[in-house]
């Protein structure tokens, strides 16, 4: 059976499963559509939230980023998990107690104004729309690499599949497909990692293998890796960073950004009780950690595998002859993700850091004329099964896993977008008298429109796919997280303070990002070159969300203190969300 047929079988079988769930979990009411009826078990919700949260970026790109960046890229590991601690203690249980359907619902009621609700809707749409582009593009890439269809055909197929279960099933359909998608993606991620860990370290548990011994050399794996990469002029894998302020702020941005993402928060509205929201955050992190503890292991082992593939006799001996390159290199050369250029015409593959001035002498001495191999980061996960010589069905599994990761996140984002439009814009702000039936119809139509918009954006990406992450997390960190947290932890912050805080937080963050990455991400319009020397106090645009958040808190408090305290009813609302008693199921209203 050819690899193409195997991939088709795996992806086809996973789609059949999602469709089956879509038919079974059709939403009958707005409550089912928005919060899956409010009866999802905390462990089930934990699994669904893990899939909701782990996107194409987590599945395909993160291990590659870490492999290339070493210690300093630990920001992704700590940042994208530490947010759940904040979610569990600072937001999720209280918002569940509040018991409505959307994030702007809470901000609108707590800050008793249409302006605050509208500001929250705008922030939500900005965050979720930028985020969904990456998911559609990721699904397109997975389809085109594994199923031999064009990128745009891949995006259309992905859109059709999401359409089937998200439009009809709403949150209910999405929840149970996300559970299935989690199972598919975690198996796909773990199996190749286990084999690679066993081959390199003799330990089948990747995260233990990473801190174990490299069987071939008898040295600790990380020490061996450090030695190999520094021999070739690269920075040591475990080298410390000299910009600790930036590393801290970047980590913090990802943490509070995660806690402020609307599509993650609304998942906690689906559990039956307030206490369940707390447990559920813990279960979510366990399910996420299964991948996040494996990712750094995959990263270090794949990096070492790559180096030893190119230097089979050690870093002092001649590198690999191009004609003798392994099969998997040939496969990925066809996709353009691995490129070789014989700069010194010796027919061998020189792979080293030619930007390192002190290594230059060694390179010249060996007759090297610049680095000849470029390897795209995404290879690390996608080519893992082939590097480890695993059978074809594992590759099929990776294809299904990558698509599952992209689809599950896209569906969660689309639900957050459509509920903000149908519930907050149409029902609350425009036509409060709308009937249950019409609101359902509006929710389905806005979901369909959101999918079309996401598809269009995926087909015509605005050329800033890589910057999207910075924007989405920066905005969530600087706008929604502070507003939500102050809404719960302060009785004094009022409507004017919250609106001022969100507006200033949004503007400061977006302007800082635009200054370095281009105004509205239009290439060539950046005010300053995006290099550490130009950054304010060495803070990168990606890390600036935490500064925006601090400014948001400060402005909101200052404005609130010089204006009137919130009315009694709002203060009572704050008291009520602070205690679990009397929550009941999510309110129909």
């Amino acid at each position: 059976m050819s690899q193409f047929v195997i991939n088709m079988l795996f992806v086809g079988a996973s789609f059949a499963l999602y469709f089956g769930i879509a038919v079974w979990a059709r939403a009958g009411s707005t409550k089912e559509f928005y919060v899956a009826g409010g009866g999802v078990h905390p462990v089930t919700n934990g699994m669904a939230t893990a899939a909701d949260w782990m996107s194409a970026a987590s599945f395909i790109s993160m291990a590659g980023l870490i492999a290339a960046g070493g210690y300093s890229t630990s920001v992704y590991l700590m940042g994208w998990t530490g947010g759940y601690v904040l979610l569990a203690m600072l937001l999720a249980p209280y918002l569940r107690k509040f018991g409505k359907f959307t994030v702007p619902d809470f901000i609108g009621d707590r800050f008793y104004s249409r302006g605050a609700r509208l500001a929250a809707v705008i922030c939500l749409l900005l965050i979720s729309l930028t985020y969904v582009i990456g998911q559609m593009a990721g699904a397109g890439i997975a389809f085109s690499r594994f199923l031999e269809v064009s990128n745009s055909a891949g995006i259309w197929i992905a859109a059709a599949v999401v359409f089937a279960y998200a439009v009809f099933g709403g949150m209910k359909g999405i929840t149970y497909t996300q559970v299935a998608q989690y199972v598919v993606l975690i198996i796909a991620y773990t199996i190749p990692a286990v084999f690679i860990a066993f081959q390199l370290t003799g330990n089948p548990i990747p995260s233990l293998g990473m801190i174990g011994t490299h069987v071939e050399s008898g040295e600790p794996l990380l020490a061996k890796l450090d030695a190999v990469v520094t021999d070739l002029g690269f920075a040591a894998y475990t080298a410390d960073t000299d910009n600790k302020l930036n590393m801290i702020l970047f980590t913090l941005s990802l943490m509070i950004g995660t806690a402020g993402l609307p599509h993650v928060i609304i998942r906690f509205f689906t559990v039956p009780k307030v206490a369940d929201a707390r447990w559920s955050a813990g279960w979510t992190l366990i399910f996420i950690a299964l991948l996040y503890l494996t990712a750094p292991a995959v990263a270090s082992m794949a990096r070492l595998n790559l180096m030893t593939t190119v230097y089979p006799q050690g870093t002092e001996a001649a590198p690999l002859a191009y004609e003798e390159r392994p099969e998997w290199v040939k496969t990925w050369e066809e996709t353009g993700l691995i490129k070789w250029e014989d700069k010194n015409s010796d027919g061998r593959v020189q792979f080293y850091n030619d930007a390192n001035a002190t290594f230059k002498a060694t390179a010249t001495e060996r007759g090297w004329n610049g680095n000849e191999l470029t390897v795209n980061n995404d290879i690390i996960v996608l080519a893992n099964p082939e590097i480890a010589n695993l059978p074809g069905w594992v590759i099929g599994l990776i294809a299904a896993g990558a698509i599952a990761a992209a689809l599950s996140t896209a569906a969660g984002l689309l639900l957050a977008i459509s509920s903000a439009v149908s519930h907050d814009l149409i029902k609350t702000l425009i036509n409060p008298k709308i009937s249950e039936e019409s609101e359902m119809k509006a929710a389905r139509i806005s979901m369909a429109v959101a999918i079309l918009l996401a598809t269009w954006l995926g087909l015509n990406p605005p050329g800033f796919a890589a910057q999207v992450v910075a924007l989405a997390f920066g905005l969530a960190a600087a706008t929604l997280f502070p507003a939500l947290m102050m809404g719960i932890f302060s009785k004094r912050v009022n409507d004017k303070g919250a609106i001022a805080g969100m507006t200033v937080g949004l503007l400061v963050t977006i302007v800082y990002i635009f200054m370095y990455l281009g105004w509205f991400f239009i290439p060539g319009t950046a005010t300053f070159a995006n290099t550490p020397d130009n950054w304010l106090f060495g803070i990168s645009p990606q890390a600036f969300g935490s500064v925006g958040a601090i400014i948001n808190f400060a402005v909101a408090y200052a404005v609130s203190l010089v204006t009137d305290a919130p009315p009694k009813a709002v203060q009572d609302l704050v008291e009520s969300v602070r205690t679990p008693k009397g929550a009941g199921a999510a309110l129909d209203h």
Partner: protein
Amino acid sequence: MADDKANAAAYWKANVSLITWSLVVWALVSFGFGILLRPMLMNISVGGADLGFWFAQQGSIITFIAIIFHYAWRLNKLDKQFGVEE
């Protein structure tokens, strides 16, 4: 009613103190051991790297899980103690 209010205030105070201590641990393992204090932990080796590297890549994530479950467990007890559980 006044008693209810005092009880709710005491419950909230206990919750905020629990949150504060949990956040201290949260910041210590990530920003502390994983980043700022890493140079001081260089001599403690964990499988080919140092303790700070381990906290940045694995230890902080494991601690985060422990913090959430500990918080949920303690707060559920507080819920019952103050009679505010569902």
